[in-house]
């Protein structure tokens, strides 16, 4: 290891960590085969190089070992992005231990990653096929956290993770996206535009080499980094299946604090959070609960940039005219369509006017099938 600690140019990882990343890229195919058993994949990723290689390389073992030993001489080293490894200052504190990747490629710069991870980091995880309600909740949560100077970490696939980044961007905050493939190939490709916006102020990280294509195992492995980066993991919505709860289970296994947002008890989509809440996860209702929890964990938040607006709260609501407040309360309690609101005996013209005004104020959004969803307004808008 002494050779590995040898200092190289700034912004580079040390050779042994680069070699680990290269090896994972070469073993991507066999690892994907192993990914059918999530537990086995996690165990494999904890192995050291000399154990991992014979365990999964199969017929290519001899050839790979040969190249492994000559690594650095002939093998092309990744270019274009900055890397950081656990032997460099500023490597995220949470990523220590055999389970964590020793090295990360960083889009956005290693220094920025170091700065973002000195602030409290909260992972937002959940279903890839959530309800529109959960998407709105996740966005609100990310927006609230970003305005308070908390860094959000999430994958960049579908569903909740996308909402987390989108919410952060709406609040002009910075988030960390953990990619399941190399940074040179945005995987999934449909997130390319969101990826570009995330790395403008935030970071994207990956433990795989630049050109490595994304595979299933990569997404599973990315979840452990998302959780590893964060002090607190919040599960927004998930079915009660091993796949949807994977990130939450990793957080539990690593002893990280876990929070969950409840949903309707009858909804199978909310069964995951409910099960976690039963087994002792923290109840989260919004950004306030997360901030309170962070406060109890590591004291008051460090001073955030003064140009960021304060956390939006319900003051905007209490200043509204009576009929708008009433409509908002009704929508929040389930009368979420014009039809239902009108059935309650309200004047049809008044209902539509109130809904439009609330939508213009940013307090309501249209969800699936035209149902209205309450949302937190962004401070400074409307």
């Amino acid at each position: 290891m002494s050779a590995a600690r040898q200092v190289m140019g700034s912004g580079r990882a040390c050779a042994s960590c680069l070699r680990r990343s290269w090896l994972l890229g070469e073993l991507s195919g066999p690892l994907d085969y192993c990914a059918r058993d999530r537990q086995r994949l996690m165990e494999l990723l904890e192995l050291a190089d000399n154990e991992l290689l014979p365990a999964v390389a199969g017929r290519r073992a001899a050839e790979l070992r040969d190249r492994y030993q000559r690594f650095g001489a002939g093998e092309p080293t990744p270019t274009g992005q900055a890397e950081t490894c656990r032997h460099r200052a500023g490597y995220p504190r949470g990523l220590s231990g055999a389970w964590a990747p020793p090295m990360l490629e960083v889009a956005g710069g290693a220094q920025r990653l170091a700065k973002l991870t000195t602030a409290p980091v909260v992972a937002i995880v959940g279903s890839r096929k959530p309800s529109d309600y959960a998407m709105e909740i996740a966005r609100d949560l990310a927006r609230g956290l970003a305005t308070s100077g908390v860094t959000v970490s999430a994958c960049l696939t579908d569903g909740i993770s996308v909402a987390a980044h989108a919410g952060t961007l709406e609040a002009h905050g910075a988030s960390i996206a953990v990619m399941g493939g190399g940074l040179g190939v945005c995987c999934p490709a449909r997130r390319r535009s969101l990826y570009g916006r995330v790395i403008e102020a935030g970071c994207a990280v990956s433990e795989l080499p630049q050109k490595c294509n994304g595979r299933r195992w990569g997404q599973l492995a990315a979840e452990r980094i998302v959780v590893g980066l964060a002090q607190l993991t919040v599960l927004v919505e998930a079915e009660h299946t091993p796949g949807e709860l994977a990130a939450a289970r990793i957080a539990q296994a690593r002893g990280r604090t876990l929070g969950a947002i409840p949903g309707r008890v009858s909804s199978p989509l909310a069964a995951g959070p409910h099960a976690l809440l039963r087994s002792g996860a923290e109840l989260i209702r919004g950004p306030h609960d997360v901030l309170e929890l962070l406060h109890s964990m590591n004291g008051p938040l460090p001073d955030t940039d003064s140009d960021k607006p304060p956390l939006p709260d319900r003051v905007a609501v209490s200043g509204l005219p009576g009929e708008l407040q009433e409509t908002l309360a009704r929508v929040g309690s389930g009368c979420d369509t014009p039809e239902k609101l009108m059935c309650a005996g309200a004047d049809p013209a008044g209902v539509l006017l109130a809904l439009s005004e609330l939508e213009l104020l940013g307090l309501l959004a249209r969800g699936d099938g035209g149902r209205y969803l309450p949302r937190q307004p962004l401070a400074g808008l409307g």
Partner: protein
Amino acid sequence: MLARAHTFTIEGLHARRVTVEVDIRRGLPGFAIVGLADAAVREARERINAAILNSGYEFPARRIVANLAPGDVRKAGPGLDLALACAVLGASGQLAPENLERVVLFGELALDGAVRASRGTLAVAHATQRAGVPRLVLAGARAREAALIDGLQVVAVERLNSAVRVLDGGPGDALPDERADANAAKQRTVGTLAPAFPAMDLGEVRGQHHAVRTLVIAAAGAHNLLLSGPPGIGKTMIAGRLPSILPPLSRTEAIDVTRIHSLTGAGVHALAARRPFRAPHHSITAAGLLGGARLGSVGEVVLAHHGVLFLDELSEFTRPTLEALRQPLEEGRVAIARAHHSAVYPARFMLVAATNPCPCGYAGDGDRCDCSEADMARHRRRLSGPLLDRIDLLVNLQRDTSRDLDADPLLSSSQAREQVASARERQARRLSPEGVLVNAHMDVRMLALHVRLDERCERMLSVARQAGLLSARGEHRVLRVARTIADLGDSDRVRPTDVGAALALRPDVVLAGSRVA
């Protein structure tokens, strides 16, 4: 010897005058037709030959040349038969050639000499009257249709013999019995003039008051409407009741509609009274929708002129079909250009469409929706863009388990019809100097003139613009709809409640949810 007869051929919605010249001289016996005739006209040789012989006349065993002038106009259809046969009789001396002047002959011949009706009778009658020819001789079955045109002497003939008798100065055949005619017409018009749904009443719709109210708004201002909701919620049921609340056709509108329907070959025995309601199946092609599949065929958008075009399961229509709707929706007409002909048809209709909010249909209905984000995006792409851009009103229908079928109906068709009629009257009073009858057809200049907003309304719109909820085109749509809602409320001013309702009903490009960030 030479004889000349006059007739018309159908070109688009109009009839073109055709002069039939027949020359008979010595030579090898034969019958040639020249002058850009299509297959149906060329086949006329055999029909004319048989009809003349079977009517007891002599078919000259000499060289016969028929020329259809003008030579550069394509002649289609069997409607030229009668004129050709009479010209042959005139040229062979069995009929005085001068009797063929100042009369138009139109009809198809049967082999036994009977005269059959041909499509486009009303257009021919209209053109005859405009051309200043005083008499029109045609098949008895369609004489009533032609008689709808004023200032024209319409003579019905059942057989070739009667036509010759008429041309020689004798009387025509009696018009067919009124009742039999009506019955026959009714049989032929199935699927054409009669709405696709039997007369239905809005009072049969229980619950869904929001959707019914919006339907009334759409009818009042002739706005395009999109109904979205899970399967079986009543989208088709509500849309099918639209004809029952629309005002009746005015006389000029009725003549337009009747002429179009006469073109399809369906018998028309009276001016159309109801607005057309066309509901083509989603497997329809662009040619079926616009017309022009064959020479002179009329599309669904043209048949829906002055009425309603209802597209059920909008997302199932093919993309080219929906794209094809752009021109008619924007300009109220459709120009068809094919290799050998081009024509412009009127097509000003109200578009009513129904769709599911997502591929499975259950988005927003509890947790039933099982569509992935990619499914949703695909569904949205199918609908969004050019077509959704021209929809003024969007209603989302939801299941309401608490008060499903025992809910009260909001209002009956007759009540709704009264509201619509009075709102349209207000619009017509305001807009008729501009040459427009309904709010949906107001252009930007008229919007600035007739839709005055107070400060609160202006503020709402500017906030909506800033929040990115409204494009420039979207804002115009909101203004038109707000004007209609004010008209329904008998208000000269556009009030904040009108703008608020128009905003709430505006079609969101995102039909289903904010799932995509």
